[in-house]
């Protein structure tokens, strides 16, 4: 009896083990960032509709999760392309190399600006990054900048007397979102790493106070409300609660420009030219990474990459720009297309530069 049920269990185990290792595939598999996802799925659908290729399958796993799946190996049961709202980290590059993924091409496709949006009916407002930091950080410097205190600011004019007496309220990305990471990097870390009142704490106890080296904790007392992916709800909230600000990507502002508008940051408006040129300080690049070893084995993969980087998609009047992608300056677009055409291999040096 024991022999029989052992055999039976084993047979089902085998069946399932076998099924997973399919060799040839006719569908492109893409994973990665939820910010790049809308653009990638747009191109994917275009590919499926205008060519005879099957539509690529795109999963929104997040940049980190996408890297992990991408770098898990070079076999055909791993994804072909991963999207990212940040550059690949050196540790991820090494993981890829360790698992046999050596021939990667990095493709920059455009920018994403992070905007501070409010209801369209409100008066215009200009905020500096320092003011934003003081509004969202969990701990802020005391009046004499000698120590850190829990954030006491409830109104904007407490931070800067020239700002209106308006309650501070943010609807922003949750901790699981790449946009939050980007916001933390660009608005918080870039400033706090240069502020002594934070870094001194780090220097005092490097182990326990590691967070203070580049402080990015956001307050949890209800002034910053983490909001999920349901964009409609956020817009409704912003319209209803005119005091509130929303923190999200530019593409979302573009979608709803009839109901919301953005604040200027340090005098610069959140517009494509400013984001593209780097004048708008809160912006980041969007990428995707491809496995060149898969390019010949998966039909349509080359077409997909070429289509994505074509002028029709990422150009200044392109389709993706219409749905909110900020396009690269022309020379950089040409550079991207050159990289794609030559399958330039990504090296660790390239990652360290720029």
């Amino acid at each position, binding site marked *: *009896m024991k*022999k*029989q*049920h052992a*055999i*039976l*269990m*084993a*047979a089902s*185990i*085998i*069946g399932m*083990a*076998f*099924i*997973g*290792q*399919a*060799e*040839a595939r006719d569908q492109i598999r893409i994973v990665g*960032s*939820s910010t790049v996802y809308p653009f990638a799925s747009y191109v994917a659908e275009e590919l499926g509709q205008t060519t005879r290729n099957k539509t690529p399958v795109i999963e*929104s*796993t*997040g*940049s*980190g*999760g996408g*890297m*992990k799946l991408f770098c898990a190996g070079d076999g055909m049961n791993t994804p072909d392309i991963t999207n990212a*709202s940040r550059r690949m980290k050196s540790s991820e590059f090494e993981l890829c190399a360790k698992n046999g993924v050596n021939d990667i091409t990095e493709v920059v496709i455009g920018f994403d600006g992070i905007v501070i949006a409010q209801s369209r009916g409100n008066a215009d407002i200009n905020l500096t990054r320092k003011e934003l930091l003081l509004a969202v950080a*969990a701990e802020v410097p005391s009046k004499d900048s000698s120590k850190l205190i829990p954030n006491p600011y409830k109104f904007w004019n407490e931070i800067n007397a020239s700002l209106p007496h308006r309650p501070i309220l943010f609807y922003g990305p*949750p*901790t*699981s*979102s*790449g*946009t*939050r*990471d980007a916001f*933390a990097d660009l608005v918080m870390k870039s400033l706090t790493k240069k502020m002594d009142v934070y870094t001194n704490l780090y220097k005092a106890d490097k*182990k*326990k*106070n*590691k*967070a203070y080296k580049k402080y*990015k*904790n*956001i307050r*949890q007392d*209800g002034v910053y*409300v*983490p*909001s*999920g992916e*349901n964009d409609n*709800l956020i817009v*409704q*909230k912003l319209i*209803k609660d005119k005091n509130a600000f929303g923190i999200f990507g530019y593409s979302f502002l573009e979608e709803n420009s009839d109901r919301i508008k953005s604040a200027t940051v340090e005098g610069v408006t959140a517009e494509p030219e400013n984001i593209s040129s780097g004048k708008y300080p809160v912006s980041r690049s969007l990428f995707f990474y491809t496995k060149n070893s898969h390019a010949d084995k998966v039909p349509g993969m080359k077409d997909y990459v070429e289509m994505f980087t074509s002028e029709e998609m990422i150009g200044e009047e392109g389709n993706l720009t219409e749905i909110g992608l900020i396009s690269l300056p022309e020379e950089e677009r040409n550079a991207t297309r050159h990289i794609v055409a030559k399958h330039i291999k990504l090296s660790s040096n390239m990652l360290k530069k720029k």
Partner: protein
Amino acid sequence: MNIADLSFYFVAGLLPLSVMAWMLGRNKVTKATTRERWNSRPGHYGWYSIVWLATPALAVALLAGLLHLAGLYTVPATTFLIIALIAAAAGCWQGLRMIQPSLRARDSIEKVIRGLLIAAALTSILTTIGIVIAIIFEAIKFFEIVSFWEFITGTQWSPDAASGDNVHGMFGSIPIFAGTFMVTIIAMLVAVPVGLLSAIFIAEYATDGFRNVAKPALEVLAGIPTVVYGFFAAITVSPLVVKFASAVGLHADYTNALAPGLVMGIMIIPFISSLSDDVIRSIPQSMREGSLALGTTMSETVKQVLLPAALPGIVAAFLLAISRALGETMIVVMAAGLRPNLTWNPLEGMTTVTVRIVDALTGDQAFDSPETLSAFGLGLVLLFITLILNVISIYVIRRFRQHYE
């Protein structure tokens, strides 16, 4: 040849061979010339041959699969098929040789079938073990980073404050469990009165015609998928709650706990009403008649005779409903918020355990970060609570079940 094709060929080859083996076995019996009585019917000897054919082939498959999974050696496809074929043929030959009148084929097959049945029954144990393993492995990784005590008793959940080794006080899960309990309590406040009273009405007061309409109508509530409830809660109920709140002068967030709580309560009504109805109807008529004969009204009979008798079943239904509410995911993912918030006010935005699990596993952060692993920590505690509730409800039923004559 890829593995999917391989398994297809394997199975597709085994089938006609089995048919052949069956016929060979059976024919050996029907064409036999001995005068002895055969122990079993001819068909049984056919199946006997099949067992002798299939077992070696499956054993070869098992071996090859184990070797492949362990990464030791991958047998090339054609080699595998040939070896399996030879094994099958050898087995079949041996089996046929063993066919004689005194062979108790029916009993042998019976043993094999019994084994298959036990194997099937063991899958449920395997599944439980699987779930526990899947969660524990990663949860252990999480609890290596975050102390279990802090996790259980901490009141601050701020994963972005955690970086590197400094995770003290960042992963206190009490606000999250508080959110779950708040939504569950609201749900039960809706479900228990409505469910219980409906069950009593249907069981005791209603005419047959009414019951035939009302019972299926309540079952419809159970048939609505949770994602639909979630959509309804987010798009219709939440704005209504906000509107009513501001009409009364209170402030309600769009991601308040009241909306998912109310909708979840409605979803749970059938659990309570259906189970209570069954329990109440199982109480023998003699108890009702005895009480009524003493001059009580129907409601007094219900309150003082029937409900106490039905109590264990109702409590079990109650516990089952609670555990359903605790584990419910879609309604809260779509209607509740993401902010861990420890508060008594259901109008404020808050998050629950299941929402955090989904968010942690489908979000953008790095795969091995404490935040992703926290999903497994939360899952482990959730599993634990659900199992305890289940055990309690079984115990309650067993201990307090009244046996009628």
